[in-house]
């Protein structure tokens, strides 16, 4: 029965591995891998919770009478305690509620975004926004729009403008908002997957950065554009930001960006060689996700077998 706990443990593993994976894998592969893994693991952990609850519930005399199976056989063959079953049922309910709430909220946000994008009159899909803000973002829609503040455009030369626009266009053309939305829903189902969802937020940025680097054929230019815009935009109030465990002295020449925020990591990645395809790493991750799925399936088969046994000895 330990099999049932495997789909609950592997998401924790995925949560721990997400950030290093996002840093090592080619961004497009990383995005696909992390998003599909998040969905698969969220589904497996919900299935495992459902099975735990079902195993525990199967021992109830009432259900034994209704299902016409032997309660004694069930009690002997089934190691899941009532407490674990109740906890699983509660967790499952919580997960279902969280996914519903998050889904509705995201769907509403996307609908709003599509509606507004349709109302924006843009030249070549780009809208210049007045005012003092330093801002640039892509608005998902059919077609999507890119909004850039006039003040930011004034600060950038032509090549950097091209890099910025190419980055935002990659977000729209590759529909990155769908990846981030799906990953965020998976994290709502299982909070252990929250680091995976955050990693997807990062890898879509890297994906767009690499696209901009290809379009402008200048990685350094993209890195400098990101750096310039980030420094222009300045610090931003952050919602309960995680503690940054950077270990850099302010004057040391070698800097560690592994634990920094997304912007320095993106810049550092662009200042090094382009990422390579890592087939073995991808395969290894896929296998681990599959193990969670197989474990859930085997546990379901066990429950089925146990029920048949209990029914047979009636």
């Amino acid at each position, binding site marked *: 029965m330990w099999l049932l706990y495997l789909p609950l443990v592997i998401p924790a593993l995925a949560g721990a591995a997400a950030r290093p994976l996002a840093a090592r894998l080619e961004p497009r592969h990383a995005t696909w891998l992390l998003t599909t893994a998040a969905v698969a693991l969220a589904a497996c952990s919900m299935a495992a919770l459902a099975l735990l609850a079902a195993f525990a519930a199967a021992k109830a005399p009432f259900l034994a009478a209704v299902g016409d199976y032997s309660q004694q056989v069930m009690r002997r063959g089934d190691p899941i305690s009532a407490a674990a079953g109740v906890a699983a049922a509660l967790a499952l309910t919580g997960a279902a509620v969280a996914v519903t709430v998050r889904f509705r909220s*995201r769907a*509403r*946000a*996307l609908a*709003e*975004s599509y509606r*507004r994008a349709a*109302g924006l*009159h843009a030249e070549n899909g780009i*809208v210049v*926004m*007045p*005012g003092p*803000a330093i801002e*640039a*973002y892509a*608005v*998902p829609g059919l077609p999507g729009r890119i*909004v850039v503040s*006039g003040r930011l455009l*004034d*600060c950038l*030369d032509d090549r950097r403008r091209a890099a910025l626009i190419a980055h*935002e266009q990659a977000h729209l053309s590759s529909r990155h*908002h769908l990846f*981030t939305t799906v990953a965020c829903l998976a994290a709502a189902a299982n909070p252990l997957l929250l680091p995976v969802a955050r990693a997807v937020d990062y890898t*879509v940025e890297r994906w*767009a950065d690499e696209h901009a680097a290809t379009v402008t054929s200048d990685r*350094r*230019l993209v*890195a*400098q554009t*990101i*750096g*310039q*815009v*980030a*420094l222009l*935009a*300045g*610090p*931003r*109030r*952050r*919602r309960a*930001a995680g503690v*940054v465990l*950077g270990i*850099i002295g*302010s004057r040391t020449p070698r*800097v560690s*960006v592994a634990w*920094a*925020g*997304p*912007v*320095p990591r993106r*810049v*550092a990645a662009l*200042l090094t060689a382009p990422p390579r395809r890592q087939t073995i790493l991808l395969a290894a991750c896929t296998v681990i996700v599959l193990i969670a799925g197989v474990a859930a399936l085997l546990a379901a088969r066990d429950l089925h077998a146990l029920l048949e046994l209990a029914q047979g000895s009636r």
Partner: protein
Amino acid sequence: MGGEAPQRPSGAERRAAGALEAEILSILREADGPLSPGEVRRRLALRQHTGVQHTGVRDGGGPRGELSYSTVVTIVSRLHAKGLLARQRAGRGFTYTPFDEASLAARRMSQVLGSEHDHDAVLSRFVSGLSGRDARLLRELLASDPGPGNSGPGDGDPGHGGERG
């Protein structure tokens, strides 16, 4: 206060204020460049003298028909506060220009979408916020880059915004 004691606005006056805002906005839209409140007031008076009838301004604008300077200042400041007008400092006062429809729509969207967590998450921002440590790290990264295109860490300052050759 233009020699008049300020009074609580009646319903009619409030309606007239809306009409005045619309009229001042249309004057600024028709203008070739930025206008000061004084110029706005002159053009407004000119319109009314040439007999152009505009919605509701006459019936609510008081018996004098002509607006005081301070009323015009109040209205353009209110329009500026609503985000409908851009203003530039000119001498001791300000001049005002209207934003065009597309950019107003973009800004309204930015406000609406930026206000809620999920709405914000849907937008793909070019850069997310920087912590102080991130900013320092970023400057070091850019400074340590030996490449030919590097224009140094001073790049990010608004003063010299990356005008490279």
